[in-house]
């Protein structure tokens, strides 16, 4: 199992992204609130804690700007965050990680920054490159799960 996980990680490092964009995105046929609920349950299954949820739509509504459901979920692993910030305080703006959950009528778009895009800033740091690939794999896998959700 470990070998298979290692091979998957190696492939993630070797294979170029299909698109040149630096975002990981998915569409779910389920409504945003349901996706949000399932995502919050899914994150711990991958070992992450939900740090907090930012209600962008709520903030805008307070100022009379109309918006659909729009949330940003912050998540991370404490030990990872501490280990990385000890060596790289310049990584602090990117931690915890986040996924935006955006309603599009009765469906939902999920978007996250592709952590591998940060690799360009640290070309010689193999450990960080590996970490970025791990995060990418996890985000991609979680978004794939959201994509599989049935209309609800």
């Amino acid at each position, binding site marked *: 199992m470990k070998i298979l996980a290692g*091979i998957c990680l190696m*492939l993630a490092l070797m*294979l*170029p*992204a*299909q*698109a*040149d*964009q*630096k*975002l990981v*995105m*998915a*569409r779910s*046929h389920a409504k945003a609130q349901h996706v949000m609920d399932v995502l919050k349950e899914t994150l711990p299954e991958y070992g992450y*804690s939900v*740090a*907090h949820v*930012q209600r*962008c739509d709520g*903030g*805008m509504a*307070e*100022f009379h*700007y*109309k*918006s*659909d459901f*729009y*949330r*940003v979920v*912050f998540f*991370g692993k*404490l030990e990872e*965050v*501490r280990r990385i*910030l000890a060596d790289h*305080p*310049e*990584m*602090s*703006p*990117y*931690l*915890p990680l*986040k996924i*935006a959950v*955006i309603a*599009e009528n009765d*469906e939902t*778009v999920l*978007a*996250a*920054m*592709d952590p591998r895009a*940060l690799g*360009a*800033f*640290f070309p010689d740091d193999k450990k960080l490159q590996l970490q970025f690939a791990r995060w990418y794999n996890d985000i991609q896998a979680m978004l794939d799960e959201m*994509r599989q959700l049935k209309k609800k």
Partner: protein
Amino acid sequence: MKHLNWLLLLLCAPLLAAPDGKALYEDNCSVCHHSRGEGGIGLPLTDEILSQVSDDYIAKTIRHGRPGRIMPSFEALSPAQVKAIVRYVRSWSGKPGPVFKTAKLKGDAKLGKPLYEKNCVRCHGKDGSGEGPGTGVTMSRERTFMVMPAALNNRGFQQSASDAMIHDIILSGRKVGGMPSFKSKLSDQEISHVVAYLRTLKPPVIRQGMEEWRGKPAYIMESPYDFDTTVENVKQALTGANFRIFPQRYLEQGLADEFSVNTRQVSIRFCNFKELYHLLNIDPRLGTVLPCRINVIERDGKVLVISANVAQLATLFNNQELSEVGVLMEEVILAVMEEATL
């Protein structure tokens, strides 16, 4: 060894199978273009639009994307995969796409310029960038106005569209975007002149962030003040720059319990809702980098003020309007950080 062979076979199986256009479309395109081309962040792929463009145009658009206009280039897809996506998109209407001659039309750009300025500039803009902010139909955009005028000067468009295809669209118009037919206004030869002029249009030069910060993930400044004073300074500078400040959070908050959370790492989150609303209309995916924040971190006896390099971050979206905003925001954030650490 036997297990390794099986593993290799398992990993290679998807490469040997014929590409599944529907699955590829769902993986790569549906998030922006919606499940059956209804549109969203990306352009709607309506029957009318698809009936006006060739398979070759769609394939090249997938391959080259639209630099600076959200649509990424999918260079890693194989020709067979691109073909499978085109076939799947065509299956919606069951009709084959038109085929256009690839030869260049004989037109004179000098004669085409005044015709373009008279007939096209109102929607497509003087430089051919297309009018109006953003793209797609997401968020608060007027959903009845489904298609923004095309960026004719875009490198991806120029590489994908043949002269004959552009000629044909000018002739027939495009109902979904409000483009009229020019059949009764322009002769075939005049349209060829317009097409020749379109070929001379160049994409705009996008401003870049400050040279000293290029290639760096974050702006970092060392504060001469103690931790608490620096936090207050950042808040004051942000208020002075007309930002609303949210309650501050520790960087580890929500990940660590209240007894072990590092209280010398603070995240000061801020927003200008009017600007945010405007930006979300340009690109709803902006949430992936929200909210704006400046971190204050104490380590090894030093107090550091840190913000993401917003000029670099904005380039993630392949959206030239956001890239321009990123450069402007860089100036604002650096001014705030300088004021706080002066």
